């Protein structure tokens, strides 16, 4: 599933419309919008540093992400540049604590990259150019990214989280109206949705690849456990043995079937079961 988080409704509206998301009325603490078949869940977190962490924890506890799910935080930010583009954040610094977080940058994209500093309240006044070492860098400022990363890291790995930001101002927050925020996101919607669609494709692909049916020889197991009089340790060992056989494409069902035909199986007691298990292991390798 694709978990989207936006601070305000005006930042989320273009995405809600684009993906035809429907409001989940069972969710009362936060506004949540769903599309069952598209597998998208968008949450409006509220602004500041506490509300987004609560929103991520709440939604991800209710709808547990899989190993292939993605989280994306989309919103406006302030910056020391006028650049009218979408930024993908490669470094997130939490201003009050000085802690820094690094989402993995594994996927190709068409965005600019920048670091972002999460501040507890809106910046007022113009932002001064930031100098780091001997390099001048674009620096973004928001109020949510570090909270979303930290809360998200309980459910997602760093390769599953993306932070997409569009500049709305240079620190003159009084000019940032809901309409302006919505327009900024709307104008960049094709680029944003292209990236989000890519995340969904990868999610689907990885899910198919990891289909447990390919590697879990479950149907045979219960009968074998019983017929071998397996102890707990033998059960674990047998499960591992057959898991390997399935992955290495060893025809273990035929081997087991032959052992039934040769009347090694079923065994009459635990002692015979142990001997039979050793024979089975020998035949499988």
């Amino acid at each position: 599933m694709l978990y989207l988080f936006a601070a305000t409704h005006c930042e989320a509206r273009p995405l809600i419309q684009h993906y035809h998301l429907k409001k989940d009325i069972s969710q009362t603490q936060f506004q949540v919008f769903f599309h069952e078949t598209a597998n998208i869940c968008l949450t409006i977190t509220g602004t500041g540093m506490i509300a987004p962490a609560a929103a991520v924890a709440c939604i991800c506890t209710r709808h547990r992400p899989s190993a292939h799910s993605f989280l994306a935080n989309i919103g406006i930010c302030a910056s020391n540049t006028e650049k009218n583009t979408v930024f993908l954040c490669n470094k997130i610094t939490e201003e009050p604590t000085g802690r820094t977080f690094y989402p993995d940058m594994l996927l190709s994209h068409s965005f600019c990259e920048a670091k972002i500093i999460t501040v507890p309240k809106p910046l007022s006044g113009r932002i001064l150019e930031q100098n780091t070492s001997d390099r001048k860098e674009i620096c973004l400022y928001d109020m949510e990214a570090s909270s979303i990363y930290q809360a998200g890291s309980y459910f997602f790995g760093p390769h599953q989280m993306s932070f997409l930001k569009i500049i709305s101002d240079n620190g003159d927050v009084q000019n940032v109206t809901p309409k302006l925020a919505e327009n900024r996101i709307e104008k960049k919607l094709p680029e944003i949705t292209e990236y989000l669609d890519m995340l969904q494709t990868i999610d689907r692909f990885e899910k198919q690849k990891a289909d447990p049916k390919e590697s879990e020889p479950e149907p045979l197991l219960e009968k074998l456990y019983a017929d071998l009089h397996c102890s707990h340790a033998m059960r674990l060992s047998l499960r591992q043995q057959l898991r390997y056989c399935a992955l290495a494409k060893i025809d273990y069902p035929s081997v087991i079937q032959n052992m039934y035909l040769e009347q090694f199986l079923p065994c009459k007691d635990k002692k015979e079961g142990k001997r039979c298990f050793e024979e089975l292991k020998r035949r499988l390798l």
Partner: protein
Amino acid sequence: MKNSKDDYYNAAFSHIYVEKAAWSHPRTKRILSHFPKASVVEIDHYKDVFCRKGQNYGLQHRAQNLILAVKTGTLIYRGSPVCQSFGNAHFYYASCMMNCIYDCEYCYLKGMYPSGNLVAFVNLEDIFSETKRLLSHHPVYLCISYDTDLSALEPVMGYLSEWEKFAGNHEHLNLEIRTKSANRSFEALKPSSKIIYAFTLSPQAVIEAYEHKTPSLAQRISCAADAMERGFPVRLCFDPMIYIKDWEKEYDAMLDAVSSKIRMEKLLDVSVGTFRISQDYLKKMRKQAPYSPIAQFPYQNETGVCQYPLRLSEQMERHMVLRLKENMPQENIFLWKEESGVFYE
């Protein structure tokens, strides 16, 4: 329009993380100059990136990033009792890089490190100083390419040539360069009996199935033959031997290919050993690679070391040693024995 899942991932080293302390180091600047299009991200400490929780080793290997850092603390490690010393009394290894550009499914690094990204320490001179300090006490046998593959990275990093210069000035220092690479990094080095090139070889079927991104067997053999030709002592490592269907046939074919190109009696030595790994590393590998036959093999746990069933490992090692003895003296064949507590990879 993208037509392959791999198109979604960045190329290797598309992002380079540079520690603040490493930023002004000349080696950092030289390495960065090889990647003019890379996004460079400044970091406080390499562990801020390398040791994050929840990293996916496999995906990170698909789009591996580079971290440039300054190594502090222990710079040279005493060779662990679980590593093959080849009879050297003062056996050490240096970790001037962590992780490898190759992606072998059985590699112990997958269990040892939390990340698939590659860390290169730029302060080689500190590692050299520590080596000098050890040399003031006794001769040193130093493996410099244990937790990485320096030869594969030589065109970009240039660390081997720096080690060669350093070794040239220190009579009692012997270096081992272990590699699966077919880079002829030795062409830029002055042949020396003190620099051992150790090539890890596997049957082509194992390479194709499990040693992702590595050169073919033929390329590695050809590279090893050239290294011998140029006057470097060459060691062949048939270690780890990997169990596959028809392993006997596959390993025989490999040895035939080796002996057709390399005069086995001219080799410095060879090492032989079946795959074994610590239980802690295997646990991590199984979690990271739930669909890898190597990770999911039902190994036997012998005092914390997971290995093939005794019958199988003895059969594989015996077969290999007997075949090798046809072409080379037995004293040049180092076989890993559990009793001696010698194991690695």
